[in-house]
């Protein structure tokens, strides 16, 4: 049953028909294991405070043991009043949030209003449940709408939890410890930002997959403050010299020019109608 404000995903998109076959073929690959999708260790957290929602994330994207991106953006834009942090398979979180953002933009254009957080949650839940956990996206959705300040988490199988504070990703246990200790209902903005920052920081310290800088996103009725980075890593390296060489650094010993003979096989000219 398609809603008028939601684009039907084209059949050429995600196709998991081979999932059962792949599971059966598990043991036949070299090394005994099928190639696994890359997951980026992450720490993301969210807190509801007096005037809105604060979301936080680290900025490290890893490719096995190498840090692939030191300044990766894990807080995704959904709509002017809703942002989403993503943990799990990087490609899945990226594309799922983009799809959600497009759908909600269509809704906004159709109806002339900002979308509500429950709408985003329902669309995500629908989509992730339909794919039975094949899309590895653990998302924290936070936003402010006419009904109040909301924070939701959506799991890869399509389960939804509405909570006042939470953390996800490989560093979630460390971050949750800080949140459990420091959270109170109706925090002030500064305290809330400090709490989220401390939570992400503890995830960065205790988890190998999280690191580098901390991004914070504050959403209130007045607007959004996306602070990137909120806190830079104390282990930031500073390059001592520039690896740029001016032309002429390498001496040229000899030069030989060989013209390439090309035959024109076919030439077609079409007049452009610019009337």
């Amino acid at each position, binding site marked *: 049953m398609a809603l008028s404000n939601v684009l039907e995903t084209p059949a050429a998109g995600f196709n998991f028909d081979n999932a*059962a*076959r792949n599971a059966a073929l598990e043991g036949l690959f070299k090394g005994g294991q099928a190639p696994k999708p890359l997951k980026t*260790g992450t720490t993301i957290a969210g807190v509801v405070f007096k005037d809105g929602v604060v979301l936080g994330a680290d900025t490290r994207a*890893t490719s096995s043991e190498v840090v692939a991106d030191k300044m990766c953006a894990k807080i995704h834009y959904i709509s002017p009043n809703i942002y989403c942090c993503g*943990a799990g398979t990087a490609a899945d979180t990226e594309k799922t949030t983009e799809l959600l953002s497009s759908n909600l933009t269509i809704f906004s254009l159709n109806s002339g209003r900002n979308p509500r957080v429950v709408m985003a949650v329902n669309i995500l839940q629908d989509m992730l449940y339909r794919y039975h956990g094949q899309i590895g996206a653990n998302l924290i959705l936070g936003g402010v709408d006419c009904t109040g300040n909301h924070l939701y988490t959506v*799991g890869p199988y399509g389960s939804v*939890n509405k909570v006042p504070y939470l953390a996800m990703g*490989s560093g979630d246990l460390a971050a949750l410890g800080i949140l459990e200790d420091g959270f109170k209902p109706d925090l002030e903005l500064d305290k809330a930002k400090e709490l989220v920052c401390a939570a992400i920081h503890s995830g960065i310290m205790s988890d190998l*997959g999280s690191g580098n800088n901390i991004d914070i996103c504050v959403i209130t009725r007045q607007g959004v403050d996306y602070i990137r980075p909120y806190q830079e890593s104390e282990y930031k390296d500073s390059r001592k010299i520039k690896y740029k060489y001016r032309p002429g650094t390498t001496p040229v010993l000899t030069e030989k020019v060989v013209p390439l003979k090309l035959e024109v096989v076919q030439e077609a000219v079409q007049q452009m109608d610019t009337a």
Partner: protein
Amino acid sequence: MAAAATMMPYFGQKVSSNSDLAPDWTSQEVSTGTTIMAVEYDGGVVIGADSRTTTGAYIANRVTDKLTPIHDRIFCCRSGSAADTQAIADVVTYQLGFHSIELDEPPLVETAANLFKASCYRYREELSAGILVAGWDRRKGGQVYCVPIGGMLVRQPVSVGGSGSTYIYGFMDSNYKPGLSKDQCLELTAAALSLAMERDGSSGGVVRLASISEEGVERRVILGNQLPKYSTH
């Protein structure tokens, strides 16, 4: 499409990962390993549940609300896979709401239970959902229907469900009597749930209670430190 796919049985749904960086529970399905209970009394029903949702060994949500409203006087208690039960509850809420508007009168609890059964039975191979449907209607008063995994439907005066229910069958059998009052039912439910939460690792948190009658729905929460205490030594 691969013909091989239809020959192989549908294997587990886990998004498996043996990466050192990602802990085990990030890839386990979210389950409401739980304890739920529903009791009929003359004039309504009392329902109760614990509040723990787990993914493997990690508690994903320690304040879950497993008592989900389906209609004004009909609730369901969810156990099993969180995603599956939320999806089924949403579907039944829509179907029942539509049905109620067509009839122009409040729906029957038996109807809601049958709608749950229809979904649970049809998709029994893919789903993992044990549900208690409870509510009040004008025709038969307070009713409790049990729809366990597999899609059976049976009406019972008192019913428990979830992983923690196994620990309290003895308590139920010895302490339930027909003809209890609403307050006695509330006490019984709170006591039973506390005992189950004490013994079952997948149940815990707070106890959520609700009583449904003609007058309406009354909800309450019993926090962890206010639960009845039972010590074995």
